[in-house]
């Protein structure tokens, strides 16, 4: 019997499947990438495992982030799912809030609902706002409907009744009947999925749960079977958008949280790395080929949002790590609009044809082309296996140069500066706008293109420090290894704060905690590893948005909780009003089942920095080409200082240290750049 000592994380993205293996005994890390196989996602994973040359018996923990749910939703490749609503409300999901994302373009529509109108049914029933049943469920009507659903070959059912967030009795009755009449059909009801006020948001979440439930359950079971064949007997931990993992036993209940399973991983990795480097505040910048994901950690916690969706108009009401995605990446196109302004993105050359320098037929200038022209990118990437075509990059950038009468370097530099400014604006929206001062933060730059831009972005935003983790290209996979089992139980609870006693609150939290404990026990987490946290959503009476404030066991009075709210309001919105009445809006319990996490090793310096020097090349900085040292990251000894200008190259990315910036490689092999603020 082989001792299980390896932690395996696999993050399946749209293009690549990233594999990260950490050997607990030796501290060794192995990373690799394979192409994703969207039509048969397990295939790419199993190939990756083969490439990592590990057997199932060696694996101690297998964490997994996947785009299976995202793809199924976007492509509408969903099981035959029916929606059952209160009579008169089956179109709530199509009407939504009436809005669309692009308010000016009459030819850009909201995506169509996940369940077509023909599959949306109604039953006679009604509950009022206090939870009184005005009209009980008509059993015969429901049985009749069940027979119809059977005839239609329905595989999954979402039930969402008006006011079921206060009383789910009618929904539960319908669920019972459907389970009797339709054995094997997946049924989920809104009062169990997300007992929160507002019918569209709750219905949308319930529907997404219903359409993804069968898909995700089948997928995880199939993967577990394959892994069992290879000798891995344990649960697969699946990453969810809330920044935790769950096991297959809870997937049916929380399938909607897997709608974008992998996106949280980068934010988690960035949090972990920043903490490792001693920072409690960090902005994560994950810049890839077509887009950049930005996240924010404040005082050790990543910002959570309840306003997220895979497609505009179909919200998922579970708390999710707040990620701001913008269309800026290595492949983003630079172009001149009709008013003569230099623009960058959001259109991208994508993987095909890709940037002009890839030599695959692209002719328009991208950020990668500009970086190549400036000498920041090497002509040889991926350890020499990929050659970039400088002439093609120059041809493309020349178009911009011609328009403004610039030299080609000036044009390339302008392209990069506009790209950096766009990303800075996005970072401002998630930081400055929310009352955070970037000067108190570290920027964790990763993804294939993040380390190329990180230093300049930090300077633009007055961020003093940039951290480039050791494996910027597979940071998301690493993030999968760094999470705990996590569930969020929430409910709407509308009361005046002054009318509520602390005892009443704890009573509510107690029953929610009991539910959370049950989930964790079901997942086999030992009780001593539980952490349960209470949160309360508050707002000034008359306001429409609430702020979440933690309620600890030691909170001694309602006043103490309110004081925290006033302070938080002050921080986020620059004012508070202690005279104003405060209203409770909702309660949430976050339950964490701590799972042991890898401890990354610290390294001792080996060799000298000269060993890492690959040579020099001319790189464009501040208006001129400067002879710049090029380093091989793998060979730079830890605790080495490097002063800019310098370029540090590695298999999956290139780090730029501009002139007058200095960098240090720490004991964990992170590159820490000190930003020159002058």
């Amino acid at each position: 019997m082989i001792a299980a000592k390896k932690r395996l994380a696999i993050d399946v993205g749209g293009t690549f499947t990233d594999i990260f293996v950490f050997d607990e005994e030796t501290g060794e890390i192995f990373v690799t990438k394979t192409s994703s196989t969207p039509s048969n996602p397990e295939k790419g994973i199993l190939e990756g495992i083969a490439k990592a040359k590990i057997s199932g018996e060696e694996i101690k923990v297998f964490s997994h982030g996947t785009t299976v749910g995202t793809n199924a939703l976007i492509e509408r490749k969903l099981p035959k799912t029916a929606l059952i609503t209160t009579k008169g409300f089956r179109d709530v999901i199509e009407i939504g809030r009436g809005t669309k994302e692009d308010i000016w373009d009459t030819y850009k529509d909201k995506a169509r609902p996940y369940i077509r109108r023909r599959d949306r049914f109604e039953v006679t029933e009604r509950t009022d706002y206090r939870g009184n049943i005005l009209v009980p469920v008509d059993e015969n009507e429901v049985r009749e409907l069940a027979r119809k659903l059977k005839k239609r070959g329905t595989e999954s059912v979402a039930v969402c009744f008006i006011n079921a967030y206060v009383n789910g009795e009618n929904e539960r009755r319908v669920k019972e009947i459907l389970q009797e009449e339709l054995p094997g059909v997946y049924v989920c009801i809104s009062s169990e999925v997300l007992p929160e006020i507002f019918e569209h948001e709750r219905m949308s979440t319930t529907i997404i749960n219903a359409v993804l439930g069968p898909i995700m359950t089948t997928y995880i079971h199939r993967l577990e079977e394959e892994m069992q064949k290879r000798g891995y007997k344990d649960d697969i931990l699946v990453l969810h958008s809330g920044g935790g993992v769950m096991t297959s036993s809870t997937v049916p209940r929380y399938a909607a949280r897997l709608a974008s399973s992998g996106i949280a991983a980068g934010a988690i990795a960035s949090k972990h790395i920043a903490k490792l480097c001693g920072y409690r505040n960090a902005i994560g910048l994950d810049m890839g080929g077509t887009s950049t994901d930005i996240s924010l950690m404040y005082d050790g916690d990543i910002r959570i949002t309840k306003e997220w969706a895979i497609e505009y108009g179909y919200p998922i009401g579970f708390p999710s790590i707040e990620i701001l995605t913008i269309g800026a990446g290595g492949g983003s196109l630079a172009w001149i609009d009709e008013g003569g302004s230099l623009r960058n993105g959001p259109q991208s050359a994508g993987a095909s044809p890709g940037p002009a320098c890839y030599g695959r037929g692209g002719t328009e200038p991208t950020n990668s082309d500009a970086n190549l022209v400036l000498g920041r990118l090497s002509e040889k990437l991926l350890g020499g296996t990929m050659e970039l075509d400088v002439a093609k990059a120059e041809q493309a950038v020349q178009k911009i140069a011609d328009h403004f009468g610039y030299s080609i370097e000036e044009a390339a530099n302008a392209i990069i500066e506009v790209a950096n400014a766009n990303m800075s604006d996005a970072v401002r929206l998630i930081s400055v706008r929310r009352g955070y001062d970037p000067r108190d933060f570290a920027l964790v730059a990763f993804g294939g293109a993040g380390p190329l831009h990180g230093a300049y972005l930090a300077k633009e935003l007055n961020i003093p420090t940039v951290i480039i983790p050791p494996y910027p290209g597979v940071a998301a996979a690493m993030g999968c290894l760094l999470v705990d089992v996590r569930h969020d139980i929430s409910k709407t609870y509308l009361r005046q704060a002054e009318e509520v006693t602390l005892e009443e609150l704890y009573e509510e939290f107690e029953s929610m905690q009991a539910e959370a404990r049950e989930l964790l026990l079901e997942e086999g987490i030992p009780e001593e590893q539980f952490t349960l946290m209470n949160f309360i959503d508050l707002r000034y009476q008359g306001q429409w948005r609430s702020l979440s404030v933690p309620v600890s066991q030691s909170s001694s009075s309602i006043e103490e909780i309110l004081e925290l709210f006033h302070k938080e309001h002050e921080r986020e919105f620059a004012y508070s009003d202690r005279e104003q009445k405060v209203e409770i809006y909702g309660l949430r319990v976050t339950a964490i089942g701590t799972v042991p996490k890898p401890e990354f090793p610290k390294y001792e310096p080996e060799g000298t920095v000269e060993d890492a020097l690959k040579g020099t090349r001319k790189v464009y900085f501040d208006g001129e080409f400067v002879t710049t040292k090029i380093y091989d990251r793998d060979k730079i000894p830890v605790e080495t200082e490097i002063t800019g200008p310098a370029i540090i190259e590695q298999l999956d990315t290139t780090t730029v240290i501009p002139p007058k910036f200095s960098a240090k490689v720490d004991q964990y092999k992170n590159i820490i750049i000190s930003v020159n603020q002058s």
Partner: protein
Amino acid sequence: MGSLQKVVSKQETSLDPVTFEVLKNGFVNLVDQMAEQMLRTCYSFVIYNRDFSCALCDAEGNTVMQGTHDISVHVGTLHLTAKAVLEDFKGDIHPGDVFLVNDPYRGGTHFCDTRVVLPVFYGGKLIAFMQTNGHWADVGGSNPGSFDVKSRDHFGEGIRIPPVRIYSRGEYLSDVVNLLISNMRVPKERLGDLRSQVEAAKVGQRQLLELIDKYGIDTVLTAFKEVQDYVERLTRKKIESLPEGTWETVDYIDMDPELGDGLIPIRVKMEIKDNEIHYDLSGSHPYISCFLNAGYGAALSGLYAGTKTFFPEVPLNSGFYRVVKATLPENSVVNAPEPVAVTGFCSGAFEKIMNACFEIWSEIMPERAIACSFNLEYLLIGGYDRRDASNNYFMWYDWMAGGHGGRIDRDGANATSPVFGVGLSVQPCEGQERLSPVITTKHEIITDSGGPGKYRGGCGVEKGGVLTEVFGGVMSYCCDRSRSITWGIKGGLPSIPQGAVLHPGTDKEQFLGTIFSNIPMKKGDSFTRPSAGGGGLGDPLERDVETVLEDVIDGYVSIERARKDYGVVIREIDRDVDLYEIDYEATEKEREYIRKHRKDWLRVSPYEVEKMYKNGEIDQLDVIRRYGVIMDYTTNQVLVKSTEQYREAMMKRTLAYWD
């Protein structure tokens, strides 16, 4: 950005492309930051549902940038407000001052749209204005919500606020604010809105000063000008590629309640010449006896918003307004003077102007064509909430999504917010039920509500309710298009009439029309109303037969109307499993039959049509879509003059395109 300053000094009059792009985006970002703050701290549910906008204006009051998610109806009015402040306080504006304005006769829209204007100084010099504009839930007047559909002048509508100073050199003028909010319902919440808007404006101010620190005052001021020049250049460039010429059309408000039968014309003529757009609304009807008139600013906004829809990627600022010009006849329904009531302009003149613009632009840019969309409507129920032994005054203030017009290669959007502002959210019924004793009985898409066409109009929505423990309840409605029914283009047909119904589905059922106020409502009383679908685009007889079948399966179109509107004969085999059959032969015959008679149907005497309707030979959709006849559904009498006007337009928009 070390290289920027160098380049700036090299090109004195013009910014280098990077600085320009960075500052342009920086201005957008700044305005969006103000918007975000407002959304998160406001007290008015109307603002929360996104009826608000923000702007950065220069020292002359010109708009440098408006927000990306601003509601259409405020477009092109914010600079007028800033200029009104300048006009009244010129030479007397100081650092730390803040002004408040809601005056529709000074470039505002209606009283509820209350604007905070914060002057920004640098080095002792006025350099900009930050403006935050939100629809306050109430600004006083005789009716809750400050909507009195019957008012003829503004004195009873709500408090009119010409430019007024509310902070003087940093000192809060509580007496002035008190005077204002004491005239409003729930003054404490209005104070919350005011505070939210002032703080949001300060967010913008802070961000602007940071940009100045970084780029220098001269660069930023140059960017103010150049961003406007850029939008002007961009717009002119786009117009340059279009043919010169003159286009015109007419859309109608239903009626002047005092005049009775007769649609109220809004005539829109547009000329493209020398890379400029000039609108002329001469010939539009004199202002009418209810509050559907538009003031100057609001009408202008309709023209800007209607034009902007065809140039979605052009950012909004005063550069755009330099290219789009307008003549608005005085004392007309599109330029009503004070003190004529204009609060309902959004349901009245405004959306007519927008849809008329859409029709004209659909001719010029057929690839972006769109038929008429449903009309904005507001239903208000006020009274005392006597649930749980309480006695609080409540306001159930509701608006709906509806169908948008058919497009050149696809159907119109179903159930979308009005063109007045597609960013405006409809409210959740569950929230409303907590706050008021009104239970929503349905909120659903209406079968057959989309105007037939080769590309069908989007479907409208029906929302109805019943009152529970209420005392002293009254219901009012601000709506339109029960007569000037949402129309099709390029051969497409109209959708359905709007208007509210009391006691639906009972023998007391009563059609109340589109404008009424203070109808008494008591416990158990029920009501409903539809929003129209969009008008169709193209000949419905050319609609793909299989697509009609799909619509039938989804219940967007009934089997009956599939036959009558599209000439498609469908037989139901097993509805339970969506099994239907198209009778292709019968379809061909039906289409032939309709093609042969449809032009004549539009010429049948209205009285004859009224008779057939009363006899039950034809139904309401036949009256409208087949015969083009307009009736008063409160009395079921034909409206001869309105029919004549409506048919004339239908001949031009629809019949002319039939072979």
